[in-house]
């Protein structure tokens, strides 16, 4: 089997890399693909918490790199979806415990065992980032409609182009349709104009993400979460399905829709 290794990165912290990695891995697994989410944020691991697998960690990425266990032993199987897996980062070490060479070897092994290897990258453009992209076939850039996040995304795209990564996709997270409509938030075309890479999807601001992440539940498995549905759509696009982009209007909700109808807009 020759699976796909996809790294999720952003430059800026807090834009939703980990939430994206967890939910898209879960959505791919739910669609029947064998998927593994890999946390490369050594020293600041979070993916296990968001996926609700924290209490099942025995071995981690650094144990594999340093030869204390085989890769197979460090990979955790999800309790909800049989085809979903996770490889946790070490919490008591730092980024220097892993090297790009070691990551390339691990990615090669994962590629032969999984349909999808989703690598959650740490914030920044230093060693941890270099580790995260070393074995990637494709890269997803997560950004938010904030000038600083877009600036960092642009910087990261430049570094990826220099590293000769050919497949780079953009995901715009935490879009607030209402603010965009008022002209208080950058619009999708504004962002695309600057970053000029393929758009994989846009994810609306969704309070339920906070709740599900805190509980270790996965929004993409909840039919009622707008963001969760969009993670699912992104997973389907990664599989080559033509899924239309989410129209802005959907975010306004039924009540607001009625209100607009009432006002004759």
């Amino acid at each position, binding site marked *: 089997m020759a699976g796909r290794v996809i790294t999720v990165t952003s430059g800026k912290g807090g834009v939703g890399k980990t939430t994206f990695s967890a939910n898209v891995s879960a959505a791919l697994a739910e669609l029947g693909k064998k998927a593994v989410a890999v946390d490369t944020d050594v020293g600041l691991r979070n993916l296990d918490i968001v996926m609700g697998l924290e209490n099942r960690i025995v071995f981690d990425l650094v144990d594999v790199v340093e030869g204390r266990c085989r890769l197979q032993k460090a990979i955790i199987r999800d309790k909800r979806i049989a085809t979903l897996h996770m490889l946790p980062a070490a919490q008591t070490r730092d980024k220097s415990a892993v090297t790009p060479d070691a990551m390339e070897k691990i990615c090669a092994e994962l590629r032969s065992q999984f349909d999808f290897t989703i690598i959650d990258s740490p914030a920044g453009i230093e060693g941890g980032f270099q580790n995260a992209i070393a074995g990637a076939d494709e890269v997803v850039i997560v950004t938010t409609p904030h000038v600083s996040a877009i600036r960092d995304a642009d910087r990261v*795209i430049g570094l990826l182009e220099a590293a000769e990564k050919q497949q780079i996709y953009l995901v715009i997270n935490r879009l607030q349709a209402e603010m965009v409509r008022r002209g208080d938030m950058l619009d999708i075309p504004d962002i695309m104009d600057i970053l000029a890479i393929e758009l994989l999807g846009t994810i609306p601001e969704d309070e339920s993400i906070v709740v599900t992440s805190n509980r270790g539940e996965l929004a993409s498995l909840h039919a009622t979460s707008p963001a969760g549905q969009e993670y699912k759509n992104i997973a389907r696009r990664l599989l080559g399905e033509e899924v239309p982009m989410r129209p802005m209007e959907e975010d306004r909700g039924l009540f607001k829709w009625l209100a607009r109808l009432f006002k004759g807009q």
Partner: protein
Amino acid sequence: MSKPRVKLSGTDYGLLLRLEWDSPLPQLLVELEEYLQQSPKFFAGAQVLLEVGSRPVLQQDMEQLAVVLSRYGVMLQGVAPILDGLERRPPPPSRPMFVPSPPDVQTLVHVEQRTVRSGEKVAAEGHLIVIGDVNPGAEVIAGYNIFVWGALRGSAYAGVPDHEEAIITALHFAPIQLRIAGHIARPPEARPNAPGTPELARIDQNAIVVEAWERGRGGFYKRG
């Protein structure tokens, strides 16, 4: 055997050829040939400077030396004054007095066909043409003019260090900062969005001015 009259040595400025100038030239030529013959392939492709000190060197002598050197694939790059004790010693360099004239930078054009992204820097000695956008956080620098066939949203420094006649143009002109020669300008806060038509920045009366590019103005954009 007496002290060698010919010596090639590596210095911080490249290979240096030293001759005992008190000896007659024909003898020096013979010894140079012998010296090169010892390792005929070793020096192939090398460039050497000839140390002449302060004495005048006849062109015909230079030519004869160059002929011998070229037989072994060595190019006589120029002459230098005494570089005594310079081996593996840092500057100040005595600049070669005779070097092939450098290309005129005003005729050098560097073309960059891509999006120049945040954190990236493109520098050109002569003119710089960017076919693509210059994004916020990117820097483009040129010794003369800068042309952006796309959107200029980053910083552009033209005429570095002191060519006041340099201009900066872009199809969509929205730079974070502009510099031409020693002058610095940033767009006024009240104009966050450029009109999206080609514009041009140049120095006029000691300040950078930005104006719409108009057809048929031709040489008007020249300074003076």
